[in-house]
């Protein structure tokens, strides 16, 4: 810091759940710090420290951007961009004044602002305890800023003051994170990605619970234009930022659809297509060491999502199928898609299936026996082998 009047900036990153994880705690904290470093690659910063119960990022060049990036890391409960001063009451008071002044001017008008100081002393050698510190600073600030009114229960403005051994951290902002647990700590999963609203949300939810997600999609070229893949690529690119990077595998699917259409009953097509998708996803999972599949299925929305058909489709999978949206209403999936930035991509008008293959009246209730019998007319292994041998791969870095 060349300018001595500018106080060193920090990011205070809080985590919730991983703080509770007893024996695993250390490895979870390590994973979170590593993921955080990945997420902050694009915004230059200083050392990342792990004092107890917190992660502190030193000297972010653009604290606002860094805070946003950090808040998008799974496992992070909240992030506060702040400053650090020496554990000295004069320095603390001066810093509290300038931060409060800025926060007050950022709030338009001259109406009252409800306000609280939240002191927290983790170093017991500091002469004031948390209560005393809060009261002392509150008194000074109330005297100085007439717009402030104390409200300890629901303040509009909170000045956080954390007293540590060699420093004191101050902040007025708190950006909520997504929670969850660090990506990569619960294993790999293969997500079946379509261009719709649900499957990207399902993938995101799996990541949120610590899964590293690989993507597979199915492409019916030349029954669909090559351009129909663009949307899926954009979705993968978007999701890549939540787990620092992603790989999209594209399985050619036209031959499989043609074979099913020629040999199998029309009404079963939808379920048969999905069984082949599940098989290809399982093959990919085995090759990549993934332990489960992820789908955007919810219960009972469309023909492919009745409980009967979910069973018939799962019957073709030899891995557990995670369905994070099983209890979601469509509106809930849409709300979350908006929040994570996939909605606007998903609603682009780009077909993900060709009318040529759509059955006029898909069967709503199938049984595994029935669909297995229908598949007897196919050389399932050959079809899967052929598609799997021609998988295309697209790699998306975390920061596009």
């Amino acid at each position, binding site marked *: 810091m060349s300018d001595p009047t500018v106080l060193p900036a920090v990011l205070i990153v809080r985590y919730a759940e991983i703080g509770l994880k007893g024996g695993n705690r250390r490895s979870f904290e390590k994973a979170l710090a590593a993921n955080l470093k990945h997420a902050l690659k694009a915004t230059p910063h200083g050392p990342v420290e792990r004092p107890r119960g917190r992660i502190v990022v030193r000297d972010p060049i653009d604290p606002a951007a860094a805070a946003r990036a950090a808040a998008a890391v799974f496992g992070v409960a909240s992030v506060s961009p702040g400053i650090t001063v020496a554990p000295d009451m004069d320095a603390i008071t001066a810093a509290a004044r300038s931060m409060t002044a800025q926060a007050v001017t950022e709030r338009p008008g001259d109406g009252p602002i409800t306000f609280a100081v939240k002191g927290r002393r983790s170093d017991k050698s500091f002469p004031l305890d948390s209560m005393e510190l809060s009261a002392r600073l509150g008194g000074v600030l109330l005297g100085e800023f007439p717009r402030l009114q104390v409200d300890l229960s629901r303040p509009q403005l909170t000045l956080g003051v954390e007293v540590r051994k060699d420093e004191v951290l101050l902040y007025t902002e708190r950006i909520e994170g997504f929670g969850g647990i660090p990506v990569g700590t619960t294993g790999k999963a293969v997500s079946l990605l379509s261009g719709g609203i649900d499957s990207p949300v399902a993938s995101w939810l799996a990541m949120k619970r610590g899964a590293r997600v690989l993507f597979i999609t199915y492409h019916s070229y030349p*029954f669909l234009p090559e351009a129909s893949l663009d949307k899926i690529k954009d979705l993968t690119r978007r999701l890549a930022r939540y787990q620092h990077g992603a790989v999209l595998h594209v399985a050619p699917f036209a031959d499989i659809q043609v074979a099913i*259409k020629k040999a199998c009953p029309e009404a079963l097509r939808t379920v048969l297509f999905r069984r082949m998708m599940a098989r290809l996803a399982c093959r990919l999972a085995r090759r990549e060491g993934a332990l489960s599949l992820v789908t955007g299925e919810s219960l009972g929305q469309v023909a492919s999502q009745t409980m009967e058909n979910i069973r018939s489709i799962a019957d073709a999978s030899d891995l557990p199928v995670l369905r994070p949206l099983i209890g979601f209403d469509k509106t809930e999936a849409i709300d979350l898609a908006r929040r994570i930035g996939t909605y606007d991509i998903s609603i682009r008008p780009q077909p993900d299936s060709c009318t040529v293959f759509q059955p006029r009246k898909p069967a709503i209730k199938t049984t595994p026996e029935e669909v297995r019998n229908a598949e007897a007319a196919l050389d399932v292994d050959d079809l899967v082998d052929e598609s799997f041998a021609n998988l295309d791969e697209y790699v998306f870095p975390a920061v596009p």
Partner: protein
Amino acid sequence: MKAPTIYLDSAATTPLDPSVREAMLPFLEDNFANPSSVHPLGQKVRRAVEDARERAAAVLGGEPAGLVFTSGATESNNTVLRGLARKGKRIIITRLEHPSAARPAAYLSGLGFEVAEAANDSSGRIDLGHLADLLREKPASLLCVIHGSNEVGVIQDLDAIGAVVREISPRTWLHTDAVQTVGYVPLHPQRWRIDSLSVSAHKIFGPKGAGALMLYGGRSPEPLIHGGGQERNLRSGTENPSAIAGLATALDACARHRTERADHAARLRDRMQEVITNEISDACINGAAGERLPHILSVSFAGFPGEVLLHHLETEGVMVSTGSACHSAEAGASEVIRALGVPARLAGGTIRISFSHRNTDDEIERAAAALKRQVVQLREVGSQ
């Protein structure tokens, strides 16, 4: 493995002719000045622009003073439609119009102007009796007729249409979109008694973003774009000298090579049509009943959406076009195809194959073979 590309989509756009490129380059490099500048650098470019205007007007059968350089036929058509809309008078268009006329007409209709559609027969030609009725019923400020249909190639009889208009409603502005015809059909604006005509350079081996509105007979529509007063106040904005030079050169080449280009395209088209008619079942050639453009062939196949055939053809390197889309509910037939009364069973499976003098007989043989193969394969897959 990858088949060489056979480009059969010349009605969509064409590559730049080498002579056109040559004519454009000086204005992208040394002769960069603004033609409105009064210093010698500007005046040099001004002379080039005016020279291009004379050459272009000559090809379009008009006076240089009536030629307005635009960004293309979309702008030209918009200028006419929006510039001639009058309260209390109607605009008449046809069901075969390109979107650059149909959409502005729909927009004007939304603003409260009256827009009427002249009926056509199943060959795509305008019903002159119906047109006469429309003109008698109510004063029309504008009749807008696409000369050669970009989708099906049908050519309208502008002699007859002009005669009807002049007899019943001499003051009605007669505009034609000659984007597809200018390269292949002689233009007779005086005989047709038209008031204006639109062209685009990129359909005739010129650059994209260049076109003209040719005004005959001294009247002008209200300008669409206001500003520095260029193009006799009809189209403000600094002229694009390289595009203008490119347009003029491309038009020159059209006039010089029109017959040979038309004959060449017609031969290729006829060969393709022969293969389709003789060797592919359940297909119909659209708009074939009367006069049509030599370089456009519209075909409808039963059994699959046109777009699916298009993508299958591209796997063999053959690039064509379509108006229908795979994902739309009724495998959407276009307005023009519906206007011709093509049966629903076929309408969704329409593709447009378009030719130019750059295509060879060998290419057509290979493309026709690919077409046959892909149609047979798709029919084996079945439609539902």
